[in-house]
């Protein structure tokens, strides 16, 4: 580098020397690139088979939210597959909230435990990812090592490498896609609200039949973020874009008041007259099943026909997307920096990104979570796996799916801000 600089900037006369030098430089640069690539190739493939060799025959502790029996069953299926293929024992550590895993890794880091972490894999996105990244709790730059990652076509799909807009920097691998879906009991209401505005009128006609959970529950903040985006639709672009940047006092003052106004009008007509908000979003589904609620929402649209099949939701349940937009995101899997079985974890993630696993996951009867693989990267045979199987319950068809615009997630800092301010305003009963 210094030689090149000297070559280019020095004023001493260099007759034919500089031609030889430049040629040598070009040759050496090419050589470097070539060996580099070879190195990359050899290190790449050597690395992957290294990983395979080191990763087989181990235990992997996958910390993932365990509130949905369907997802748990899918993970059990994955466990069987990786046991067969790699003799890996997958242990699903069921979390009530992903923050539990975050605090665990944080505690381990504080205790100086840098190699024997109990968390090998964590299902994560959004602000939990932001928290872990900030505290440097995640293994960096491993996703590109996975052969199956290229199937997601990351170069053409920026969503695969951005989590709530924050670059993932190879610290987490995409797993599935989700969008906020509403569902209702068609016996209790024939015309569910199609927009946020209609919602505030609908609750007045059906008092006590709708509610949302208590922040910081994920579903709660998602509903509030959806409301925030939609209610600020009339604002100029410059202000709206502040949502996709870290929240500041100024942007909060510009964007939040309309949300609080909306909620203040909404709460008296909610379930329990807004005096009690359940701690977990899972309860919404149970309350619809009990008949207490007529309208609810979820991120996992396929859980509704599955719940109907399990008798947990009434036969008359139907799902739809709001016409003014559905909050959409990609959810990821990350490996903590101190994972005790990092190589096995990588093998597992690679399997999760395989067409086989993604197709199975997308089946409504299994989980219904949308695949992250790009169709263009799959063979025709693999593409066929993703075709929907026999039609199940009417609620499996999501009305408005085609016309509902996808709303991207705001910056992760907004979740925290909304949750904190909500708790200040409504968190403690007066």
């Amino acid at each position, binding site marked *: 580098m210094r030689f090149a600089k000297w070559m280019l900037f020095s004023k001493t006369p260099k007759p034919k020397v500089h031609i030889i030098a430049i040629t040598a430089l070009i040759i050496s640069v090419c050589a470097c690139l070539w060996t580099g690539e070879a190195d990359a190739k050899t290190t790449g493939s050597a690395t992957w088979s290294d990983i395979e060799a080191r990763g087989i025959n181990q235990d992997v*502790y996958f*910390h993932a939210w*365990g*509130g*949905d*029996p369907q997802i*748990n069953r899918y993970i059990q299926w994955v466990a069987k597959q990786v046991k067969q293929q790699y003799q890996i024992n997958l*242990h699903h*550590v*069921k*979390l*009530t*909230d992903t*923050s*539990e895993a*975050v*605090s*665990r890794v*944080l*505690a381990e880091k*504080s*205790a100086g*435990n840098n190699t*024997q972490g*109990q968390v090998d894999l964590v299902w994560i996105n959004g602000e*939990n990812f932001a*928290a872990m990244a900030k505290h440097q709790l995640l293994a960096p730059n491993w996703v590109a090592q996975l052969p199956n990652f290229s199937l997601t076509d990351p170069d053409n799909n920026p969503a695969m490498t951005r989590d709530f807009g924050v670059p993932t920097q190879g610290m987490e691998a995409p797993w599935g896609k989700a969008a906020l879906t509403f569902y209702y009991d068609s016996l*209790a209401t024939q015309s569910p609200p199609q927009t946020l505005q209609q919602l505030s009128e609908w609750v007045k006609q059906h*008092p*006590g039949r709708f509610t949302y959970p*208590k922040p910081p529950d994920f579903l709660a903040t998602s509903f509030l973020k959806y409301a925030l985006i939609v209610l600020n639709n009339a604002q100029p672009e410059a202000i709206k874009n502040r949502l996709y940047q870290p929240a500041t006092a100024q942007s909060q003052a510009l964007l939040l008041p309309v949300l609080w106004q909306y909620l203040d009008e909404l709460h008296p007509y909610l*379930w*329990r*007259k807004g*005096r*009690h*908000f*359940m*701690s*977990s979003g*899972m*309860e919404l*589904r*149970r309350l619809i*099943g*009990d*008949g*207490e609620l007529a309208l609810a929402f979820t991120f996992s649209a396929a*859980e509704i026909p599955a*719940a109907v099949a*399990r*008798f*947990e939701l*009434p*036969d008359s349940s139907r799902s739809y997307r709001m016409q003014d937009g559905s909050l959409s995101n990609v959810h990821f899997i990350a490996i903590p920096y101190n994972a005790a079985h990092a190589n096995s974890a990588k093998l597992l993630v690679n399997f999760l990104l395989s067409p086989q696993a993604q197709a199975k996951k997308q089946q409504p009867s299994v989980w219904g979570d949308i695949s992250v693989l790009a169709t263009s990267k799959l063979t025709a045979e693999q593409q066929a796996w993703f075709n929907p199987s026999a039609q199940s319950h009417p609620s499996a068809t999501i009305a408005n799916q085609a016309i509902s615009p996808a709303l991207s997630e705001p910056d992760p800092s907004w979740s925290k801000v909304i949750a904190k301010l909500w708790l*200040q305003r*409504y*968190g*403690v*009963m007066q």
Partner: protein
Amino acid sequence: MSTVARLFNPIVRISPFIMMALLVMPVMGGLIGVMLPAFGWIPALDQTSLSLNGFSQLWQTPGIGHMALLSIGTSFVSTFLAFLITILILASYFTSPWLGYIQRLLGPILVIPHAAAAIAIGFLITPSGMISRLVSPWLSGWNAPPDWLYPHDAMGLSIILGLTLKELPFLLLMALGVLAQPDLGQTLRAQHKVALSLGYCPITAFFKVVLPSLYPHLRLPILAVMAYASASVEIPLILGPNNPPTLAVAIMQWFHDVDLSLRIKASAGAILQIQLTLFVLACWWLLEGLVCQFAKSMLTNGRRDYGGAIIQKITHVITALMMTIIGLALVGMLLWSFAGFWHFPDTLPQQVVMLHWQTALQQMHTPLIDTVLIALCATALAISLTLLTLEAEQHSGKSLSLLGSVLIYLPLLIPSIAFLFGLVWLLEQVNSQHTFTNVVLAHLLFVLPYVFLSLASSYRRLDPRFSIVAASLGATKAKIFFRIKLPMLIGPIFIACALGLAISFSQYLPTLLTGGGRINTITTEAVALANGGSRRISAVYALMQMILPALGFLLAWLLPKMITKMLIKRHQQG
């Protein structure tokens, strides 16, 4: 002398110390592990200077007063109600065979874990629960579930209901246990008869003659009940409000928060919790004193009847109501666990399906195995330590000192939320990676007192002359222990086993914290599912929580008989 005999005496000699160490060190260590952070000392967060920051954060928490009031109120009222109903039942049925029936009916309720009881009560009083369905639509006119606030009401009435129904059998059975002691029980019953012959109606006779002598024996159980209720986590978590919750639940949430700096506030909260518990106990002690003062003059004023007949009728109603509530709750759970679609006002589900049991049982494999293994290990350790310590008492000739007896119940008297987090921190420092061992140790803390309580009286009452005769026949102490004392105590040992298993099955916080989320038992799963998406699966788990200890007791009843029969047969043949 065989190796066993040679090792026996030294092992017995050190057993009491091992037991005390296993009880006291974790609790004390845990308390220190909580007190230090409370005053700002958390090296993990680079804070090593003592400060009162945590406490000031605590005072500034919105709703802290309400949290404290809720904890105090629910524990005091529920214990008071449980005590009141207990003595009303004793007074009304003292001379009637109904006391025995009630004892047998309520006995099983005792071993139902708090979490299962909370789930059952929650399902009963919820707007779409059994009570609501039974009166709709013919009485109430409801075609959709009403919008009332039970459970999760702000005043904690649901919590009070859950706690009262769970603590009442315990107090009642404690009292009946005292009355079953041959000397004291017979004396009290005879004195009651004397009072009757002097013209006192049975209820007044009970209150004026039996209760004053019975109450001192009930004091410790009542205080233990109240201490537990003030710091309980499962019941307020499942039945209580969340805006704000009780102090214990809030502390748990702060400890679990991603934001580690909340740990300081949580530790300060744990200190506050200890103070709250002491406050509630002091209130009870004060109330006791006041009632004693007030009642002293009433004892000998000669009045024979204070409306005893009415009180008896009221007690009949209360007892019937209680049995109905418990019965309905159980029936509701059974129906939910087998229910297909169950539209609101219908009293019975439209279909009966086995699906939920099948699904749950498939999911339950690992938690079930873990539950049983942990319980067996903890109980085995507890029984061994208890037996060896009791044996040491007899070797040395002097019984456990007063301090020793109190120390045994230490884990029960100090709110578990106060020291468990410290214990977890302690185990993290020691870098103990064996989660299973950690969980067994934590369970041991709670199983040991109950096992000791259960075995101590039977062991101590064993006629010493058997050992003396055996010794004179040349038997070593070890031989006497294994060949004479243990077989004679087989019944009580098995009951203590069943009790220990039941206690271990019902542990929630110890498993959750020391297991670090890696070990799931039926109870932790049940609590996680209690406010989740599936009422039906939740019902299955709650029922499973009830079946396990019931099985334990069934075995405890059957096995000794079988073993004794086997031994006798072998002896007859050999």
